[in-house]
């Protein structure tokens, strides 16, 4: 297996890309680079422009301004069928009139018949659907359909695989399994994956790097850990998990609830609310600086704090992140 070495080179670059629908900018002045062989996530709330950005890369939309470079070449003029990029659709978009094998073979027209048949078998094995080639899509379960869609998109050996909310249609248990399988597959193939998702847990767990989008713009591009621990803006901090945004001089700082220490020294307060989650308990502490949320792991033998208890709130020096806005 070829594990790409760092520093990886850029496979895709968006340079000042904008896309308007009527008066509304779906994507505005986006500069973004995706590196070869990485698992990249575009994360944001619905309507933030992440899907448009992906469709620009697939060729279903054309930018109103800016350039999109793939391997250094401007691909603005290339229609979708000429781009070495394939997409796994959120609805899977399996062709209902074709068998699983013919669905997978659809993108292999350029190959000689025998080679295409061998590739179909290889893909079926890859997604663990051996022997299912003769089924029609409607005879498969949701999870199996998802894997057919994946196999079909991988079959033409694209330079980049785009995945539009790949796990959204699966139930919770299957989602977690599939998440791990997707990551393992991506590592094994060494292929660049770009996944669009509104689910922060999914993005944090799968991606090597992610871009958080907000209202058509990129708010931050970093590793999951950096984005979570060092959010650049208030919006990013609030979008990813729970956060306390507190005044600090002229600006604001972000403090994650799990870093908040409830002890004897610090800002005095009183427990206002508690919520028990099994592995942890969440507290809301009322202080002079406002309501501060804290989350504490439940340890055997330790009694949780009760509503009304007097506590002091503090956090370690590294836990507070200054915010840009």
């Amino acid at each position, binding site marked *: 297996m070829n594990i790409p070495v760092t520093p990886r080179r850029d496979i895709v670059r968006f340079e000042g890309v904008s896309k308007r629908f009527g008066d509304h900018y779906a994507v505005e002045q986006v500069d973004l680079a995706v590196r070869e062989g990485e698992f990249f996530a575009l994360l944001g709330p619905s309507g933030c422009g992440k899907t448009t950005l992906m469709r620009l890369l697939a060729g279903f939309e054309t930018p109103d301004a800016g350039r999109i470079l793939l391997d250094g070449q401007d691909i603005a003029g290339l229609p979708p069928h000429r781009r070495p990029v394939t997409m796994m*659709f959120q609805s899977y978009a399996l*062709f209902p009139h074709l068998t699983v094998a013919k669905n997978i073979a659809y993108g292999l027209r350029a190959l000689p018949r025998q080679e295409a048949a061998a590739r179909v078998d290889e893909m079926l094995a890859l997604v663990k659907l051996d022997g299912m080639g003769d089924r029609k899509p409607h005879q498969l379960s949701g999870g199996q359909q998802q894997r057919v869609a994946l196999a079909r998109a991988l079959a*033409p050996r694209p330079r980049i695989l785009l995945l539009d909310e790949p796990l959204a249609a699966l139930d919770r248990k299957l989602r977690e399994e599939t998440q791990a399988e997707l990551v393992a597959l991506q590592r094994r193939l060494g292929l660049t994956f770009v996944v669009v998702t509104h689910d922060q847990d999914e993005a944090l767990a799968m991606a090597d790097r992610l871009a958080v989008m907000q209202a058509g713009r990129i708010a931050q591009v970093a590793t999951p850990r950096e984005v979570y621990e060092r959010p650049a803006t208030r919006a990013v901090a609030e979008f990813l998990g729970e956060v306390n945004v507190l005044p600090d001089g002229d600006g604001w700082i972000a403090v994650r609830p799990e870093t908040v220490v409830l002890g004897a020294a610090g800002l005095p307060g009183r427990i206002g609310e508690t919520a028990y989650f099994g592995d942890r308990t969440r507290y809301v502490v009322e202080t002079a600086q406002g309501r501060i949320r804290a989350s504490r792991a439940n340890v055997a033998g330790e009694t949780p704090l009760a509503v009304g208890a007097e506590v002091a709130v503090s956090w370690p020096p590294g836990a507070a992140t200054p915010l840009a806005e």
Partner: protein
Amino acid sequence: MRPSVFSLSAVSLGLAFLYGPIVLLILYSFNDSRLVTVWSGFSLRWYRALLQDRQMLDAVWTTARVGVLSATLSTILGTLAAVALVRAGRFRGRTGLAGMIYATLVMPEVILGLSLLLLFVAVDVARGFWTVTLAHTTLTLAYATVVVQARLSGFDRSLEEAAQDLGAPPWRAFLTVTLPNIAPAVAAAWILAFTLSLDDLVIASFTSGPGATTLPMRLYSQVRLGVNPEINAISTLLIGLVTTGVIAAWLVQRRRRA
């Protein structure tokens, strides 16, 4: 649940209202008597007479050719129009185009026939087989468009995008993915167009010429001279043809889904 007396009688009355006259016509086509209203025994003599009737057979042949050709033309054009209306987004003049296509649905046939006649006279085309065919294409285009459009608007756009994404140019994506999936609607549009062409009298009367008499025109002119059991026979055959067509279309649709 047992159906109530009321709903049973409502259904039977409704069916009798719809099909009573047709059943009567079919029965009398097997009547031995020359008198249309007197039953004198079973016979196939009017079917035999039909086979000898050169003019009637010519009319059948003309109608079949006009029907097949105009239905095919209007299905192709109607499918393309439906694609434009459903797929091309909100292009300039979309509402106008839709309105113009659907106007012929409500346009009185007399006016459509008259205007086509004026057109053919103005451009000095000899009226005959081709003018009827073109006129019927105009007549049935709107119906074909509506039928295909209904199916196409319920069709998942991302299937076409997936095909393009996998290397198919738009035309191939349409032929290999869209068309197979809307095929039942296209077949239904064709059958509807064919049926409309088959029973049109008004527009054919305006736009036809010597040597291109359609079956409804022939029937109408004969009925004016007096109803003849032969007409019952040809009508029965027509009903059989249309029924077979409709059942065939239904079977085709059903098989597709399985």
